[in-house]
């Protein structure tokens, strides 16, 4: 589907202009805090809070240098750590959540609705409540201070959100196609891999982008499970710029925050077309 097919009859130029104005206005308001962040990352430390202007009086990249090299491990290394964890999380979520969603939408088995209810239930549990028992468990596994506690759960479909999301979209794939594949002799595995997954690229892309971004942005799990600075993620690195009792390096924080958003922004821009495209089906009648 192309971008412009929605208005079949074409709206009036006035309406169009209005829509543009609305979108522009909203986007500026929305963007102000981020623009401020970016511009402040180029200001010297003592200018950051003394002005609301978006244009630095004195332009300096000092904060970037401080931020990048300020910790005993370079920020670049943390980016790498974050990337590895986020990529593994993406793979894990896609594999395990799509399997679960397939089971919930397309397979008949005893206890399906029971497990579905439990799956929803897991979404409701606040993470702090199970944090310590979980920590103890991973400690017993010998996984603390490795990325395993951050990554392995994703392969076990711990993010019920994605299961739920995929269920919503799998429901939109015509059952005819499964049935045709059944008649072609395909079993559940083959139907899953050859029919359902290829037809779900939009929702898979959505899940991939969301899980990359959310893993990238997550700080709590890395905080708890990673001890060595060499293993820190970018978000953890960011938080070390803020210090409860001593002095926070806001310049470095804003500079590195800007850098942290950049990769996921690019990722989003690249993938966004895929995200919202509808599921491509045959041009079937009815």
């Amino acid at each position, binding site marked *: 589907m192309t971008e412009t097919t929605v208005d079949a009859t074409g709206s009036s130029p006035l309406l169009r202009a209005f829509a543009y104005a609305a979108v522009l206005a909203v986007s500026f308001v929305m963007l102000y805090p981020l623009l401020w962040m970016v511009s402040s990352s180029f200001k010297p*430390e*003592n200018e950051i*809070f*003394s002005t609301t202007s978006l244009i630095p009086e004195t332009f300096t990249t000092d904060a970037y240098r*401080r931020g990048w090299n*300020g*910790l*005993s491990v370079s920020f670049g290394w943390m980016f790498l750590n974050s990337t590895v964890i986020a990529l593994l999380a993406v793979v894990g979520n896609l594999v395990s959540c799509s399997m679960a969603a397939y089971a919930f939408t397309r397979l008949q088995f005893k206890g399906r609705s029971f497990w579905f209810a439990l799956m929803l239930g897991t979404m409701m549990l606040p993470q702090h409540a199970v*944090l*310590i028992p979980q*920590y*103890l468990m991973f*400690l017993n596994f010998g996984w*603390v201070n490795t990325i395993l506690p951050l990554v392995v759960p994703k392969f076990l479909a711990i993010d019920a959100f994605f299961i739920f999301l995929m269920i919503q979209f799998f429901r939109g794939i015509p059952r005819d196609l499964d049935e045709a594949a059944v008649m072609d002799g395909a079993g559940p595995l083959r139907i899953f891999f050859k029919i359902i997954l290829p037809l779900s690229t939009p929702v898979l892309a959505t899940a991939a982008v969301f899980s990359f971004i959310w893993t990238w942005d997550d*700080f*709590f799990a890395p*905080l*708890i499970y990673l*001890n*060595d*600075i060499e293993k820190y993620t970018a978000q*953890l690195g960011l*938080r*070390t*710029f*803020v*210090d*409860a*009792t*001593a*002095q*926070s*390096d*806001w310049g*470095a924080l804003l500079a590195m925050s800007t850098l942290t958003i950049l990769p996921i922004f690019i990722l989003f821009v690249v993938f966004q077309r895929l995200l919202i495209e509808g599921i491509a089906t045959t041009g079937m009648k009815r």
Partner: protein
Amino acid sequence: AWANERDMRLFWFGSPGRAERTLAVARLFEGANPGVRILGEVGGNDYWSKLTTMLAGGNAPDIFQLEPGRFADYAGRGTMVPLDDYLGRTIRTDRLLPGTMKLGTVAGKVAGLPLSNNAFALLYDTEAFEKTGLTPPGRGTTWDDFARLCIEMTKALGKKGVWAVGNAARYSYALEAFLVQRGKRLYGEDGQIGFDVEDATDWYGYWESLAANGGCVSAEVQALDKNQIDSNPMSRGHAVMAIAFSNMLVAYQALQKNPVGITNLPVSEVGGRSGLFYRAGLHFGIARNAPDPELAAKFLDFFINDVEAGKILGVERGVPINLDVRTAVAPTLDDVQKRSFDYVESIADFVGDFPAQVPVGASELEDRVYRTVADRLAFGQISAAEAGQELVSAAQAILSR
């Protein structure tokens, strides 16, 4: 591999600068102790969640850093190895400031090692005083003088949104100085509060009237203070003075364009008690589950007593408690650090006794009582008398749990 290769985990919070210095000392220690490897872990804002999780999981780092306000909460729950057996043996105490170990003592045992000293201080923007022609406070300034000075200062500055000083009603340490000057204490040796409703009411009344007369910042400005350096009204340009700790001068200065001066807090009566005392900057404790407490103690000894280490650390955590180190460090300091250092030295004749250790439950008090009560007062939700009442009853309830 080395037969005697040993890993030791060290966990602290603080700025990148602190991380750099701490790790440098760790490397130095490794050099002196072949086969030992020190794994540094830095926490930021979330240091406490992580420490708690690790403690609860029995996986605490061998050595971790604590701050005085929360020290007792961890020490009192037995998370650390008492240091008494190591003191004087592995950890040399002969060149330490006499009596310092009281700062690490909980229930009669030395639970953690104080790393440095600092003291309450009043920081001020020298330029503001020069421009207005007012005199900065000193040993002869009483609270009443201070109030007058603040009101004048605000007027003289004449800028909207800028006052003389932050509303210190919520800072327990300012209250502590106030109480000591009156012969009371914030916490008694019995683990209860060392003051009564009247003291608290007086304290709150003082700030209520100062705020009403425009001497200190408005409630909304103060509410944004997270009791951190950069959220302090002075750092945010809403005040020209701040009630803080001596070692924070460096950080405050970094956020100010003008030179920052440092002086003592106002007193109740001229020539009376200063309310000041040397307090621990930060503590290091050895975790209860540490596999080799002896080694950890050795590191602690190195950390506070080794002159080279001391030089690396400088006054970043406060003034060294080892007097030799102090002497060695002095010449290496820059101007700002020196100002802070000198202040601590200069009040040697002015400080009182070390205070009683903060009781278990103090951090809960910090989190939910001191700040909340003062804010409610500032926002006019309660009167000073009610605030005093509330502080005492809430503190008693929490401390007697």
